């Protein structure tokens, strides 16, 4: 459980607030579009005792000392596939990788929060031009975007 998540049994009013960070991506990279305060806590974070999966993207909140305070795996932030539904109930996944798009992530913004970072794991599959790992980046996590959460 994330450090912010350890107190999830408390009422939402007692937990740190959160912001929705909206990003857009295209061939030029990933950029922050907007920060929106939500007036409510972030969803439960991933277990910080377990390293993030190498084949995923994840968002983290870090303190000023670089400590990870919260982490959440991002599902399809830069999509490679999409679901197709049939009237008889069957579902299948088909390749679908738009070259530009938008995704959002909700992160807790407690007083210790210093930066939000979106990272692609070393095995994360990203096929979009401009976002693919270069040969010298392969095999290690890649920071896609970093946003300061400091106020003022």
């Amino acid at each position, binding site marked *: 459980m994330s450090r912010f998540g350890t107190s999830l049994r*408390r009422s939402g009013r007692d937990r740190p607030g959160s912001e929705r960070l909206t990003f857009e991506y295209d061939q030029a990279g990933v950029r922050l579009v907007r920060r*929106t305060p939500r007036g409510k806590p972030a969803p439960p974070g991933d277990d910080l005792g377990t390293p993030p999966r190498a084949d995923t993207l994840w968002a983290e909140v870090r303190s000023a000392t670089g400590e990870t305070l919260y982490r959440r795996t991002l599902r399809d932030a830069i999509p490679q596939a999409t679901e197709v539904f049939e*009237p008889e109930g069957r579902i299948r996944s088909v390749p679908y990788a738009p070259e530009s798009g938008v995704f959002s992530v909700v992160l807790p913004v407690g007083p210790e929060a210093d930066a939000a970072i979106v990272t692609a794991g070393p095995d994360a599959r990203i096929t979009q031009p401009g976002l693919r790992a270069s040969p010298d980046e392969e095999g290690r996590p890649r920071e896609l975007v970093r946003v300061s959460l400091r106020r003022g």
Partner: protein
Amino acid sequence: MTPAGTVIGATMVVNHGADVDHFVLVVVAEGFTAAEQAAFETAVDDFLAVLQATAPYDDPGVWQRINVYRLDVHSTQSGADNPLACADDPAGYVPLPPEVAGTYFDAEFCTGGIRRLLTLGEKAQLLLDLDTYVPAWDAVVVAVNHLEYGGSGDGANNIAVYSLDALAGQIAVHELGHALDLADEYDAGGPDTYAGAEPPDPNVTTDVTAAKWASFVTTANLPTWSSSDCAVSNEGVADPEPGAVGLYEGAAYSRCGIYRPMNDCYMRHLGIPFCVVCEAHIRDYLATAFPSDTSGCFVASAVYADPGHPDVEVLRRWRDRRLEPGARGRWAMVLVAGVYRRLGPACGNFTRPRRRLAAALRRLLFAPAAAMLRRGEARRRRRSC
């Protein structure tokens, strides 16, 4: 580009309390003109009826953790883009009209040459409008005013898109499962054999001991069903142990090397009940992430207005002891707990505004009961010493 329409505003249609304590779902209009506002409101009611008919959302204790808003958007034209020809159409297929419509979020069928793939061209606009009108939103369902069957999901933004075909609302129920961290359980679209690490999702596993859902397993036969040919889908294979919770091979887009808890589930097939593991996860997720003080617990929320009150704690301990496997009178407590879960929210809604009634119940009934239970606990502690 100028949007083909206008956002009118957001209206709360299911209000269980402050958004800070609730999962906030927004149903958004797309392709409805101003003259079709009533049709959109009917579509919202229809979708909520589908959702509330699906366990565990049919449980008032679960439903009470959800608030629902309706985002009214009037498009310039009615419908969505539904091209006359699409690459995957069977021979002679005739799509439903209209073929083209100028709509606010630019919904279109046939995305990527797939007729059923209904997506939004103006998703960035949708996110902006949501942040503007309902900043506390957690998940979004976009109702597209077109009768062709179609829909899509956007896991990054917890957005489901569905058309007004009678069955398409099921797409949104499935996608809501993703918003609550459930994985897909179907076996098409990935490598034949899953080669990744153990997924974090609660309803798929590579672990052949089924440790992730051990408390639900009802069969000693693990794996319960194994694939004999990883190149062939196990769609429609007969369940060797109907209703069992175990390990069924094939999930998360692969046919081998990864397992699901039951033979079928809403995360595998639309319109099928959620398997017990998914259902329990939805309950847990909403209860943990939104531990509302207006939850279904009548005693905690309405009588004491404090889930952490010592009397509430002692009553909770008594209930949990009685529910332990092998506890004396467990069957009766299971029955009582079931009735309480059903009736608690309604009793709470009645009692909460009546402070004198709550005080009387506290003084005359629950406080003496808690005191008696506390004395019993003290006696047990002395005996165990």
